[in-house]
């Protein structure tokens, strides 16, 4: 028997609300199936499963807050399932309220939590020996009732995050007037996304020693090639320059794999090259969906992926693997008109590539001065994980690939 646990959908995630089970006990599941919808600060995420088998028991109920790492369901092997009639989900409601035995909490805290219907396991205890006390429960209730206000008040004490995209990302705007699903007590809002960004960026600025490199790239070959390529495509399939940038980054990582990594208790190189692409939300804040294995995808496949991911990111409907798998981040502020982006790395990744807008600029080549469409590419990299020469090799690789777009 396996346990399915609440996945971490980012370094900043502590818990999520189970909004809906997509499976019931007895359902067969395969790797990659979506088994639940979980609401995080970043919206409703479709949670995928990475095992095969049969759903045994659902351990948490709808709208329950579940800490990262806590069991949500049991998964049986086919053999186990055959020997056992699948249990109906009747146990779910009972289990919802009863805190697991290992949670330290005062009797009073348990009573209040049970009365108010809050999961005591999701509360950080501050009492004797880390026990959850009445104060802790009341703080959690207050935070649940008014997450933005509470979170804002708390975060004011934290040193301000270095905004990743100051030039174009607007400050927190008024929250959307109508929440997507008004019937549910939803925690997602522009403010909570702002807080998620704030937490991740604060952590990054606090812990990651960044170094920055910059290079200017002549985009004439790439744009010329792109114009030709698009002529032969129907309007819907036309490629955007972003596709070339993503692909160039992915291929450059093949050459310089040191930057395709996470820093978690030391450097962990990643096999797959999963490029996170920053999507600015209209209500403020950003989402970073993942283009999986971008180095193996064709330009058209990358374009398809972007066309699929960007609207879903804006609707806050991404899958768990699309939020948590990125091994590097690309942020492109071309549309905003800035020339240079100095980014903040999204932990636990170790590098972020920033692209500014493509602008016409004087360009000296072969002793001649001319005008070319120029793109400024920057690298923000984690100096724990790599050094300047590695970063330099990487940026130059991107530059080279963009000179030969036909080979991308």
């Amino acid at each position: 028997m396996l346990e399915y646990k609440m996945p971490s959908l980012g370094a900043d995630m502590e818990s999520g609300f189970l909004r809906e089970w997509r499976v019931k006990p007895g359902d067969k599941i395969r790797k990659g199936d979506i088994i639940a919808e979980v609401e995080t600060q970043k919206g409703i995420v479709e949670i995928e499963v990475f095992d095969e088998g049969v759903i045994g028991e659902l351990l948490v109920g709808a709208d329950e807050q579940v800490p990262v790492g806590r069991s949500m369901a049991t998964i049986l092997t086919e053999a186990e399932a055959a020997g056992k009639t699948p249990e109906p989900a009747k146990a779910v409601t009972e289990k919802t309220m009863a805190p697991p035995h290992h949670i330290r909490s005062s009797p009073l805290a348990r009573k209040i939590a049970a009365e108010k219907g809050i999961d005591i396991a999701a509360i950080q205890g501050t009492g004797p020996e880390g026990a959850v006390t009445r104060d802790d429960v009341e703080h959690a209730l207050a935070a649940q009732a008014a997450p933005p206000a509470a979170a804002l008040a708390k975060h004011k004490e934290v040193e301000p995050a270095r905004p990743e995209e100051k030039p174009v990302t607007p400050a927190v705007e008024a929250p959307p007037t109508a929440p997507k699903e008004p019937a549910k007590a939803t925690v997602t809002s522009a403010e909570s996304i702002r807080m998620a960004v704030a937490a991740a960026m604060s952590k990054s600025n606090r812990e990651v020693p960044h170094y920055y490199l910059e290079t200017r790239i002549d985009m004439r070959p790439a744009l010329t090639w792109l114009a030709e390529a698009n002529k032969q495509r129907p309007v819907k399939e036309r490629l955007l320059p972003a596709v070339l940038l993503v692909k160039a980054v992915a291929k450059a990582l093949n050459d310089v794999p040191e930057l395709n990594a996470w820093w978690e208790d030391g450097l962990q190189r990643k096999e797959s090259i999963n490029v996170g692409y920053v999507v600015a939300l209209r209500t403020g804040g950003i989402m970073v969906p993942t283009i999986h294995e971008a180095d193996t995808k064709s330009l058209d496949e990358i374009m398809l992926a972007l066309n699929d991911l960007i609207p879903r990111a804006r609707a806050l409907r991404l899958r768990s693997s699309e939020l948590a798998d990125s091994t590097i981040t690309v942020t492109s502020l071309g549309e905003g008109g800035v020339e240079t982006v100095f980014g903040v790395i999204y932990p636990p990744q170790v590098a972020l590539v920033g692209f500014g807008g493509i602008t016409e600029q004087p360009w000296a080549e072969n002793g001649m001065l001319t005008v070319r469409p120029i793109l400024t590419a920057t690298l923000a990299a984690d100096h724990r994980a790599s050094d300047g020469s590695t970063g330099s090799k990487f940026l130059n690789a991107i530059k080279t690939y963009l000179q030969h777009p036909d080979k991308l």
Partner: protein
Amino acid sequence: MAGNLITYRECIKQALREALQADERVFVMGEDVGRYGGAFAVSKNLLQEFGPERIMDTPLSEAGFVGAGIGAALGGMRPIVEIMTVNFSLLALDQIANNAATLLHMSGGQFNVPLVIRMSAGIGRQLAAQHSHSWEPLFAHLPGLRILSAGTHEDARHMLAPALADPDPVIIFEYTSLLNLEKELPTSINQVDIHKAKVRREGKDISLITYGTGVYKCLAAADELAAAGIAAEVLDLRVLRPLDDETILASVAKTNRAFIVEDASRSVSVSSEVSARIMEKSFYDLDAPVQRLCGAEVPIPYPKHLEDAAVPQPAQIVSAIKTLLQHA
């Protein structure tokens, strides 16, 4: 101000005089209570005022004179038997436990024993292991007795009258370490309820539950805690048997935390009983485990610094409660 201050000793003496004046069935007997004026001068001059039939010196025979007191009570008198100190009470334990406490039951409800026994108790006067006892828990264990602890001047002054009015045996613990302590006696109070514990100071953050010499220690600790922003409630149990659950549980329901202080050694003590009752009846009001500060489990040492270390001191109470509430 000085005119309003009164020693704990004087409180007891006034109570005795008032009782002797109020009811001619009342008499005092014990070792050295008459000619000597009481081992602690509590009954000084009462012999001259009330005569040898009502202030009776007895031989050094606790079993004998406590038994005589029981007989007098059965015979219609209202004896106040003074056992010089709690240390000697064990010699009378058979009379107390087997006769005073049981006769109502053994007689099928025919014979009440309206006896009051006063005894000096407590630790803190460098009297060493054989004369420094806090044996309230030992007596509070015995069904058939009402056990009172006079931890304040108010109770020293006003507990005796209701104890005498009680038709059954009552033991009052008085504290030698408090005898010379001067306090203002509230004039508004002229009787105390010997069935109820008393909140000596209101607070919302934690209940300091105590009795006897712990009362003034806890009040001092509460003053200091107030300066640190902690509102401690001080609950004087006052009646150690039968315990006043209602007042204890109401206080815990208010503060959600209980801290019990007593001079008696920890094991099988009043605090262990109070702690158990809180857990049994107020479990879901508790926001922290019940904690206790009790006497050390040792024969009380003679040297001053070791004697002080053997019983709870206000500074320890303050520090323990600050630790308990650290997170708040």
